[in-house]
């Protein structure tokens, strides 16, 4: 009986101390983590829509987008948060469209778990840079091996067609969803 009591007491005390320490660390870290997330969103929005000075977050259903404004408070366009399945896991990315919805102003990959060295190239400038200035209508298409000719075409990454296609599909789907909410 005494043995059992000792076990329970020791484990409880270790648990209590551990919980106490973690509470302190959590209180210290939480504001920093939130600040990081905000900074990350800021950086992404400013990158996909150059010239943005302020933005307003809007949520409709599971779609999140940011209406962006320039220095004088004029609407520049919208940054849309897109997510969907890639080859190995969820891909989260952000695209910017200009105010009259004629072209994309930029794209950036926020999170991806694609194959390193292959699909992970979607996060490289060479790939995502192609979306800057791309026409929004008709929906984006990808081509393999040949140079893109139409204004709505991008070139898929060699050896990573699935990841490239996933990105294109995710963007098309989210943009369509966003157009429906407008």
């Amino acid at each position: 009986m005494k043995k059992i009591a000792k076990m329970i007491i020791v484990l409880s005390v270790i648990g209590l101390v551990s919980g106490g320490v973690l509470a302190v660390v959590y209180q210290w870290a939480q504001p920093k983590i939130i600040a990081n997330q905000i900074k990350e969103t800021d950086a992404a929005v400013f990158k996909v829509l150059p010239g943005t000075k302020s933005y307003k977050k809007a949520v409709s259903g599971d779609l999140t987008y940011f209406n962006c404004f320039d220095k004088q408070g004029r609407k520049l366009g919208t940054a849309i948060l897109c997510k969907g399945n890639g080859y190995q896991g969820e891909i989260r990315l952000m695209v910017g469209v200009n105010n009259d919805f004629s072209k994309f102003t930029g794209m950036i990959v926020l999170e991806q778990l694609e194959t390193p060295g292959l699909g992970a190239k979607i996060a490289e400038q060479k790939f995502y840079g192609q979306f800057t200035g791309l026409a929004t209508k008709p929906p984006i298409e990808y081509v393999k091996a040949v140079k893109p000719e139409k204004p709505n075409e991008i070139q898929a990454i060699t050896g990573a067609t699935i990841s490239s296609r996933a990105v294109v599909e995710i963007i098309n789907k989210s943009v369509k969803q966003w157009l429906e909410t407008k």
Partner: protein
Amino acid sequence: MAGNKVKKSLFHEFIKGWWDENPVFRQLLGMCPTLAVTTSAINGLSMGLATSFVLICSSFIISLIRKLIPNQVRIASYIVVIATFVTMADLFLKGIFPDISKALGPFVPLIVVNCVILGRAELFASKNNPGRAFVDAFGMGAGFTIALLVLGAVREIFGSGTIFGFLSFEPLVIMILPAGAFITLGLLIGLMNYLKDITKAKEQPAPACLPAGRQAR
């Protein structure tokens, strides 16, 4: 086992983790993070440092309270202590180094089940005083970090064709994929064994000076 042996010097406890008992290359412990996160040198280094932090802190604390813990609940107690430090490391990385935290993904929380840490707690920290436990954990952590850094660097050089942005050639993609981890690890362990054989052969000519126990392994 440790009881009937002569106590080894502190320096020995420190240095053994680097080479003779390197957790990755010699003991083959902690293979999961070793193989999974070493796609680049920086990932290997940060994973090694995070693990070392947890290893050093938990070994020290476990050694401090080793006489208070009843034998039956020792593993549970160790895990609570280890998990506490892992959570601290995770929150710290998320707060200060969000990029590294993202690259390592779920492998930071998984340090809890890294057998290097529980292994040192069970084999060493629970039987030695805090000073020795600290030195042992420091050595083991350093050995683990170096091993991960080497693996990450080799895979980065061959797999991505970069090391700090210098080299440039068509990379061997397989080195970045999981198979490359196994290939690199196997070759490095082979190299370690080869080097050990060479050093052993050099020691052989003068066996009379060596205590008999040296050859036991």
